[in-house]
């Protein structure tokens, strides 16, 4: 069962869309695979806004955009012939979100570790992640989700789509 479940780490960026596209090409028309496209909410830092109203508005805008992107990602997978009920999307709200409705939430300290937690809890055998190709300096300061997933993953396959 584990080997048939694939988790795509998705953030709406071109890199994560490449990861979706690659996964579609790899499994389209093949044997049954269950694919989950998962996005972890990343609300903007509240301190960057002069007031809570403008912060909440930006949080809502990002949530709407991400939910729409997830549907687009699912459509990409279905378009290559993967049955609709083999593909699901998942949006994990941030614990810091002012709009949060669900009990489960991301504490937001590491997107990579959140993705790996989802993979472990959901019994996924493969994690797919896009890589943006950052410089050493950027990786040092900003971090890299794909690098951290590669370093921290245990007992599963990681596809890195560069």
């Amino acid at each position, binding site marked *: 069962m584990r080997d048939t479940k694939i988790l795509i780490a998705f953030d709406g960026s071109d890199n994560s869309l490449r990861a979706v596209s690659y996964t579609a090409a790899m499994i389209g028309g093949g044997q049954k695979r269950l694919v989950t496209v998962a996005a972890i909410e990343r609300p903007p830092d509240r301190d*960057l806004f002069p007031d809570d109203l403008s912060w909440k508005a930006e949080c809502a805008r990002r949530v709407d955009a991400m939910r729409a992107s997830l549907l687009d990602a699912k459509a990409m997978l279905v378009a290559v012939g993967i049955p609709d009920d083999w593909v699901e999307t998942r949006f994990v709200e941030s614990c810091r979100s002012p709009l949060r409705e669900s009990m489960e939430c991301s504490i937001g300290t590491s997107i*990579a570790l959140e993705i790996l937690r989802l993979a472990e809890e959901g019994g996924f055998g493969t994690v797919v992640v896009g890589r943006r190709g950052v410089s050493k300096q950027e990786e*040092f300061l900003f*971090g890299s989700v794909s690098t951290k997933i590669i370093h921290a993953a245990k007992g599963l396959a990681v596809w890195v789509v560069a």
Partner: protein
Amino acid sequence: MPPSARELLARLAPDFPARHVGEIYTDTTEFMSISAGDVIKLGERHFLVLRDEAERRFGLEDPKFWVKRCRNLETGGRNLLKLVFHESFPMTIGSMVVTCTRSPRKESRILDLVRGDPRFMQGETVLDTAGNPVRILEVVAGKRLDEKIEALEMPHQDYFHTLFPDVLARFIEACEAIAWLHERNEKHGDVRRDHLYVSYDTGRYVWIDFDYTFDFQESPFGLDLFGLGNIIQFLVGMGQHTTQSITPAQRELIEPEDCSIMFANRIVNLKKLFPYIPDALNNVLLRFSLGANVFYDATRDLIRDLTKAHDALDA
């Protein structure tokens, strides 16, 4: 009718020259208009503005018009009043540009969080009549750590064997303070060597200035860690060493990988200049070098390695 500034100062600060007396402000929105001789009234407290605060870096004074050095007219003590100033600006780090934002409410929140903790600057936030959160800060009774180090007149080897072990122990304690913030999902935001003071009373290191913030998603504390790395390099080296500041013979030994990942001319492989630096300590420095393949992403990891390095000094 409320008293004028002249009446107020005649009563509470009779030594203050009458010709310099200005206005009383209860709304600090227009902070550029508030200058020496004016009085800022917050609730029932009155603060006589003595001057705008300034940062002294690289021999230049950079005035901070939103930070007023004041005399508290009720207590006679000194305070810094930080007024609301929202700005976002690009900060250049080596070849990279990072957007920083000044956030009064972040600083207010951290001041509340660290109240009573001697590892941090102390203060409180009071709203002025326009609702601006004014931070009333206690002036740290101490001297800047970098100025203390730069004032030392001794060979590096003597410094390293006599003073540095205590400096490192104190710095580890300062790193613990930053880790404590990170564990509460807060960042300092502006970890620089001139934001670390040495208390006159206790010798303890004290962090100041918490109002910067930045938005790094995957590495939320990356800039704080980078700052800690810069400070430890400075402390180990008893100052900063660049490829321009060393002798030609030393320059022969330095490869690009020996320099900072962010600043191509800053030497971080200090063992090449000072061979008696133990590997355990030099390896920490190398994690901030261009040659590094693995970087610190948690302050606790840096503290663990610095503690081992401190033990190696004793060995």
